[in-house]
């Protein structure tokens, strides 16, 4: 209910904003400028909201395999980072370090993937293991800070993000840079280290399957195990968790390392599965997107894939909109911002006018 309202609100605001900017200034045409504005906005929003699924082939609507593949590929890292952040949020910590953990893991994985002539299965296994361990290592300092003093992990993780980016870029540059390319990218990975694609033509990699599987796995762990119960208790009431004999600090430390490991492999699929070389010249930003994914999924690992798929959907839609209409794809960020803003505002949905509105319209006070 709440999520639908917020998403609709975000779409409405962005629609209105687009409409305002699409009204032509010069009124030399005989057509009503408002009408032109509406038409252009509707055209853009049609592409925005449908293009990951369907495409207009000169009047005939067909399934858009290309964008559909991009959609699933885009969702993969978002599921991992969203899951990583949802897990720590569940225990009451806001992890801003996922971006650095992702980058550090991706760099380690890429360095290993560039080693030629290793047994394929072994190499891929080691790449993923090493990326996860690097992500975990990158989470140690923020984790330590967070149990030492509440909220200090925010700054520490921020520093770790920068260190990951600069040191990672340095390593890629000095060790495996492709000297023939003008842009900064690594050599092509060893063919043994490359994951097979599900769909060769549109380059669908297998990340989405593994990502969904991981999310479901952690969903069960949280829901069914004693460990999951501990995490939930710490998140809902630290003092109560302490009184019931849970070693809170230990658990908080552990969950952050696990989260780091998940974030560490978030970027690997995109590199060894899709690009087959290290291509990031700036930090890709999936760690930040993970925050949106996690809070849209209300910290529940089972919902993370849906929330990541939604985010990826509007992104690919926006990308297509930017290509085939006059509206900037940056619009999607405005929607993302609005979604986080209203999701975070817990008080807003508990305020009396809002509840009254709900009672009137739905007959149920709980949101």
């Amino acid at each position, binding site marked *: 209910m709440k999520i639908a309202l917020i998403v609709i609100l975000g779409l409405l605001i962005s629609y209105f904003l687009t409409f305002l*900017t699409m009204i032509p200034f010069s009124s030399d045409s005989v057509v009503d400028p408002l009408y032109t504005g509406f038409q252009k906005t509707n055209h853009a929003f049609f592409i925005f909201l449908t293009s990951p699924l369907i495409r207009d082939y000169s009047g005939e609507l067909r399934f858009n395999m290309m964008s559909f593949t991009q959609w699933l590929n885009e969702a993969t890292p978002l599921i991992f980072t969203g899951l990583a952040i949802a897990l720590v949020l569940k225990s009451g910590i806001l992890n801003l370090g996922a971006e650095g953990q992702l980058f550090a893991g991706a760099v380690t994985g890429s360095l290993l993937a560039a080693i030629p002539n290793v047994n394929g299965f072994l190499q891929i296994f080691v790449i993923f293991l090493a990326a996860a361990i690097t992500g975990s290592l990158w989470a140690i300092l923020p984790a330590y800070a967070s149990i030492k003093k509440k909220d200090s992990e925010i700054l520490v993780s921020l520093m770790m993000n920068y260190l990951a980016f600069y040191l990672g870029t340095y390593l890629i540059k000095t060790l495996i840079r492709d000297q023939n390319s003008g842009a900064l990218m690594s050599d092509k990975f060893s063919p043994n280290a490359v994951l097979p694609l599900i769909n060769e033509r549109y380059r669908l990699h297998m990340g989405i399957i593994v990502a969904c599987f991981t999310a479901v796995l952690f969903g069960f762990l949280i829901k069914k195990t004693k460990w999951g119960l501990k995490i939930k208790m710490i998140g809902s009431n630290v003092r109560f968790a302490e009184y019931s004999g849970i070693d809170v600090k230990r658990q908080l430390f552990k969950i952050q390392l696990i989260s780091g490991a998940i974030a560490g492999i978030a970027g690997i699929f995109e590199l060894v599965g899709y690009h087959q070389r290290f291509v990031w010249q700036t930090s890709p930003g999936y760690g930040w997107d993970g925050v949106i994914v996690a809070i849209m999924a209300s910290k529940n690992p089972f919902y993370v894939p849906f929330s990541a798929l939604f985010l990826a959907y509007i992104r690919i839609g926006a990308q297509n909109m930017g290509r085939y209409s006059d509206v*900037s794809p940056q619009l999607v960020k405005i*929607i993302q*911002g609005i979604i986080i803003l209203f999701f975070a505002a817990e*008080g*807003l949905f508990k305020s009396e006018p809002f509840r009254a509105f709900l009672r009137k319209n739905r007959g149920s006070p709980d949101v």
Partner: protein
Amino acid sequence: MFSLKEIFSDSYFYSSIIRISTPILFAALGALVASVGGAPNVALEGIMLMSAFSGAVVSALTQSLTLGIIGGLSSALILSAILCIFSFKYRANIILTAIAINILSSGLTGFLMPVVSGQTGNTTNLESIVFPQIHIAFLDHIPFLGEILNNHHLLTYLAYICVFIVFILLKKTPFGIHLKAVGENPEAAVSVGLSVGKIKTVAIMISGLLTGLGGMFLSMGYISWFTREMTGGRGWIGLAAQALGGKSVWTVTASALLFSTGESFSYSLQIYNLPTEWVQALPFAITLVVLFIYLKSR
């Protein structure tokens, strides 16, 4: 040939540190004011970006520097107000709200840029008004130091004047004392009748104004246009500089200078085609070490 001596004996190197420090110092001072009040302002990056954009665009459309400044600063105030309303009134997590503001302002600037300028990467075709460059005549007679300190932008001098203003604000005014009380012990502050929400709101607003000035330096200083994502993490660096400097204006200023020295040095290294990453990473590593010494000592 690469020579450290050549870099360090060039007055241009030091002058560029001062130039580069301008937006970082503004952001660091903004972070300081917010942090003294116990309300971390993680939205600095977004506020800076937004005011860089609106300052450049408003000054170009109206051809007036004053209106440009008003435009830039009011956009900074609006974003700060959103941060305050959502986090204090609607009890949203202030960090999440700030992240939302950063994304929102990156989106809004990117979305509106083609609308106002017809270009997607920058607004070079708009003629923005820039802040004047200041020439101080008597500095001409001082060798070396004069070259370093002279011919900077108005905003650069203003940034260093703001250091003193912020010092006075925090240490010598009732507001500063209240702010400190609110930041250190909100319960006690409430019990003596201070309105925590109001004081924090004012602090965030001031923080936004300072950061907004930093943003305008980027698009209305040496460069007279806005480029996408032109802040390039300076808001975050300001936040890091504040973390390194702690709660004192002087150490925060010093650490802002440290970060800009790192950046300036890395530009010098680039000329010699040397890897710059470790120089750029160094201030962050130092900050990390300092943060941990601080945590250990608790």
